[in-house]
């Protein structure tokens, strides 16, 4: 019991909380130090709740280690900015400042998120809906595959970011241009993975399906599609990450809303607390999306293992 109470994480938490409440040298640091303490307490509570819900000892240990690293990072940041004031004030906001900005900016973030997600989902779903059936049809026909596969090797690796200026010039408005770019970014990884998956699909499933006399539709969508789901999903994951990168890049160039725009807009005004907060928020969004994606993947591949 005592050993558990005096674990590294607990001792560290007590120490960093105490440090965060020492008055700092930077002007205004005392106004925001309550937020620094707040985020430390918040992190600790999240860690405690997760730790209590988790039965696995090894995972529990990692959670404690992660919490310790987070505490260390926050307190280091707090010390060099608020406490000792050795960093440039405008470029290096204090952690408490970031937390305060974050809370104040939540409505703006939600608005940006909605605008970004709209573009992302349209472009991404379009890519998914086109790439998968097309790749299945082409990959299943050897002659077509042999013709198309070399072309994908040329077109696929073009960094989609280079299409941004052209797409903005070519298409009537920013919305259509960014949807197009997201589409391109997601399309190639999904298409290439599905195409190769189909061409290299395990013959044993094909043979079994053939002796059951399945028709072409059944072969493509009830045999090959589930059989190559693992490679489709890995393509779809790469596509998702790429399209998110492209979306934020496109927003930084030509948008008037969205998360990428938010970061770019406030860096133009040198409002770095907002810039850093925006970056952190994007990190949280990406984590959320990846988390959901993992859930979907686990559900679709429940038959494996």
């Amino acid at each position, binding site marked *: 019991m005592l050993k558990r109470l005096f674990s590294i994480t607990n001792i560290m938490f007590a120490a960093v909380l105490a440090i965060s409440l020492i008055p700092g040298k930077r002007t205004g640091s005392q106004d925001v130090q309550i937020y620094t303490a707040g985020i430390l307490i918040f992190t600790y509570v999240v860690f405690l709740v997760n730790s209590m819900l988790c039965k696995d000892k090894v995972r529990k240990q990692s959670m404690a280690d992660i919490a310790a690293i987070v505490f260390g990072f926050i307190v280091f940041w707090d010390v060099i900015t608020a406490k000792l004031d050795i960093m440039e004030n405008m470029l290096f906001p204090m952690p408490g400042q970031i937390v305060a900005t974050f809370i104040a900016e939540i409505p703006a973030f939600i608005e940006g998120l909605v605008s970004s997600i709209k573009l992302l989902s349209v472009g991404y779903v379009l890519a998914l809906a086109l790439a998968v059936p097309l790749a299945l049809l082409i990959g299943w026909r050897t002659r077509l595959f042999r013709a198309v596969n070399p072309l994908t090797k040329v077109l696929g690796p073009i960094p989609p970011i280079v299409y941004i200026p052209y797409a903005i010039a070519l298409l009537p408005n920013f919305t259509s241009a960014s949807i197009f770019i997201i589409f391109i970014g997601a399309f190639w990884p999904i298409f290439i993975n599905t195409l190769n998956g189909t061409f290299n699909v395990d013959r*044993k499933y094909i043979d079994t399906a*053939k*002796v059951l006399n399945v028709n072409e539709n059944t072969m493509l969508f009830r045999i090959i599609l589930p059989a190559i789901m693992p490679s489709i999903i890995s393509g779809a994951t790469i596509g998702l990450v790429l399209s998110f990168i492209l979306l934020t890049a496109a927003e930084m160039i030509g948008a008037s809303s969205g998360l990428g725009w938010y970061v770019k807009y406030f860096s133009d005004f040198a409002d770095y607390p907002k810039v850093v907060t925006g970056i952190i928020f994007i990190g949280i969004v990406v984590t959320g999306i990846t988390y959901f994606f993992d859930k979907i993947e686990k559900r679709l591949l429940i038959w494996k293992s």
Partner: protein
Amino acid sequence: MSKLHLDRVSFSYNQQDSLVQVLDDVTLTINEGEFVSIIGPSGCGKSTLLSLLSGLNFPSDGRIVLGDKILEGPGLERGVVFQHYSLFPWMSARKNIIFGLEQLKDGRSHKELEAVTDKYLELVGLGNVDKKYPSQLSGGMQQRVAIARAFAMDSEMLLMDEPFSAVDAKNRSTLQELLLELWDGGEKKKTVVFVTHDVDEAILLSDRIIVMSAATKNVREEVAVDFERPRHRCTLSKCPKYINLRNSLVQSLFDDIDTMDEVESAV
């Protein structure tokens, strides 16, 4: 339907500019309702022969006639059970069977298909694990599902390619008994072509055994097995006639391997 006739069937393929002969001029007839085993040393083309019968491959020469029609690919009148991969891993045991039944497209409702599936899952003793995925079942259980699907689809002919060779000895004998029960139990006996490398298995199951030769890529000999059915492993193994048959078959396999070695060393 009626008998299956292989008329001077050969099969070869090209590998790096040289022709590999797998089957050479095989002629044989399999009668309706007959249980025929094909045995032979590895490299004798027994599995290839089965893939020709299933329609996954085509003879390079000769023809295969089923009833009065030349075989032109897979057909639902022939059910196939492979060594260890007849099931789709993304479908539960039950779905695997229903999927097979759906391909018959015989106008039965989904409810009727469910009922047929239930019946065969019960028959193979898997009524309680029907919702599990193949990866959650043992090898023996997976083969039971495959057999259940083959019998549920009620094709007139069953082609089995070493279906029990990846299963442990105890499960293998259970599966052999199950297969015989299902084969014997139907209203009309199915024709079964059963590829195996296990001599005891062949004697226990078959009406006739065809020994293939790795040396000549052809039929070495055909042996009728006329033990009374139902057969029991224990009584059979004590019978002198069984011991003689077993010895002569094993001798035949060894002789063939010896001839092949001679042929190869001559080359």
